[in-house]
């Protein structure tokens, strides 16, 4: 659809909404999405078909795990693992609200049990173990379940010699599980050590936003690290840094592009090209196909080489 047509549709939709029953706030919000970056009002359905990238300014919206799977995995092949794991409340944590209530609230908002969805599937025809974090669930924070699911995913990938892809989006460790959340950093990194020692490929994809304990564990341990355009990625949050050093940070600080310039990621790639890139990367890490010539021919060549050495000496 070209821009003119799109605007026409938009106008029509707006007219319709005025003539019929007025939309409730919620319905209106679901229909339209304002771009965080350029402020353009976008028709949500168009935004979705554009992979949640603003057609005007290329701003990459946060997307949920389900949408991401749809975009990334070959249709119909994703098999979720450990879907039934859910959070306990090991500390009986209560701040201004009880952790239990916050969990329920998070699930109501996200439709998910936890902040990561793991499974196996194909990306451009290549088998992979895939983990996808969802910022929409509890700010993508890592507690025991996220740590456990990511660890199991790594173990599964190791057992079946699959390439591993984790798409991160997280505010960091989940405070409500205290030290247990912190220790998930060690747990996931430890699993990745065994995975890495086995010579297997781990591609980490960093999406808006990735911070704290997730960045400082599995997200930064990729053999290859990809970031989505404009994604903010770091350890400490921008505000905390500004308060600490008492100066303003550059506008592009901690963006994917900034990280690329500072040698922290290998690639910044737009969402539409992500699946292709992942497929190509998996391919490039598979052993090269054996040469097409017959074995006998190669052996005879070796023989000749071996014989020729003494004559030369």
């Amino acid at each position, binding site marked *: 659809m070209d821009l003119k047509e799109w605007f026409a549709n938009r106008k029509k939709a707006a007219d319709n909404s005025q003539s019929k029953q007025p939309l409730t706030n919620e319905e209106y919000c679901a229909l339209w999405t304002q771009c965080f970056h350029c402020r353009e009002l976008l028709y949500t359905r168009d935004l979705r078909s554009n992979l949640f990238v603003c057609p005007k300014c290329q701003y990459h919206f946060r997307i949920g795990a389900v949408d991401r799977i749809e975009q990334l995995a070959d249709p119909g092949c994703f098999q979720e693992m450990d879907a039934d794991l859910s959070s306990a409340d090991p*500390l009986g*944590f209560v*701040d201004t609200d009880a952790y239990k209530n916050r969990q329920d609230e998070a699930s109501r908002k996200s439709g998910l049990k936890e902040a990561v969805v793991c499974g196996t599937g194909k990306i451009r025809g290549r088998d992979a173990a895939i983990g996808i974090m969802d910022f929409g669930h509890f700010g993508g924070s890592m507690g025991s379940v996220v740590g456990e699911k990511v660890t199991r995913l790594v173990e599964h990938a190791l057992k079946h010699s699959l390439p591993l892809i984790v798409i991160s989006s997280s505010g960091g460790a989940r405070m409500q599980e205290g030290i247990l959340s912190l220790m998930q*950093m060690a747990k996931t990194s430890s699993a990745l050590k065994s995975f890495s020692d086995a010579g297997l490929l781990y591609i980490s994809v960093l999406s808006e936003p990735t911070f704290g304990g997730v960045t*400082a*564990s599995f997200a930064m341990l990729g053999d290859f690290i990809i970031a989505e355009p404009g994604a903010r990625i770091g350890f400490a949050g921008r505000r905390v840094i500004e308060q*600490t050093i008492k100066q303003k940070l550059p506008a592009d600080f901690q963006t994917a592009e900034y990280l690329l310039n500072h040698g922290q990621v290998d690639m910044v790639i737009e969402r539409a090209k992500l699946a292709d890139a992942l497929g190509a990367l998996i391919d490039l890490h598979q052993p090269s196909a054996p040469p097409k010539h017959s074995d006998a021919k190669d052996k005879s060549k070796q023989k000749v080489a071996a014989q020729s050495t003494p004559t030369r000496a």
Partner: protein
Amino acid sequence: MAHTDRKQVPLEFEQPLQALAQQIENLEKQLADNPAIESDLARLHEQYDLLRRSLYSKLRPIDHLELARHKQRPYTRDYFERWDSEWIEMHGDRKGADDPAMVLGLLRIGGHKVVGIGTQKGRSLRDKQQCNFGMPQPEGYRKALRGIRHAEKFNLPIVTLIDTPGAYPGMAAEEHNQAEAIAVNLMELAGVTVPVVAVVTGEGGSGGALAIGVANRILMLEHSVYSVISPEGCASILWRSPDKVSEACQAMKMTAKELLQLGVVDEVIDEPLGGAHNDYDTVATNAKMGLIRHLDNLRNLNRSQLREDRQKKFRNIGAFYEPAAV
């Protein structure tokens, strides 16, 4: 000694001792003129000690925090010096910096030759600034990584001492990728095939502490704390109020005893009454005995078992529900 203790700036929870301390001081002044009050004085001393013991038997989490952050708390260098007066320091990350907030060296602890790694807070103001108040830069974590690799190469146990508010939230620290520096340490510590024993001596602040904390055994000093985020950070995010630090301390379960109960920590090491800052030698000896006990114990494992033991320890940490498979 009780006498010197009273002269120190009292901690907040020690306020009830103030009145008694004042009385004792007054009587002591009169003692030369009036020897008859000696028995009164002795009784007051007794009361003072009793009250102090009672105060220390029911510390709140925030009181532990105050002790863990005490300005006179012994730091890594104080321990290393006491354990081995001839310890040899290693410097730098070999990539351009030597972070004084991370101390690295070779030393003997009892019969064990070890690589020692520890965060350092600094005592004088100048010292503190140089050590960045115990907050290592990425270069500090990479210096620690050198120690980890050195230990693996020469089959030396690793002993780490943790006392840090956390990694430094600075611009250069981010540009130099502190997240990666921490993550790599987690990964490499998980993989070494030598014994690793960590002691939280003061503040165990978040990922910056864990970066040298992936150990076969984790010990904590009695009044030390260990948490996923600073209680101030937790209070401001979850309660949106800086006055809720005490609540945050309590909710996060960050004291040595609580973490022992959670199964994350293996042993709590006694501190002298009134906290480690009252008696460096005693706390250094207590820590040393604990370390030797665990290092001796880990000697029973071969190299691959040491790695398995450590990986299994962290593999099992976490609490969640999972419906039984049908």
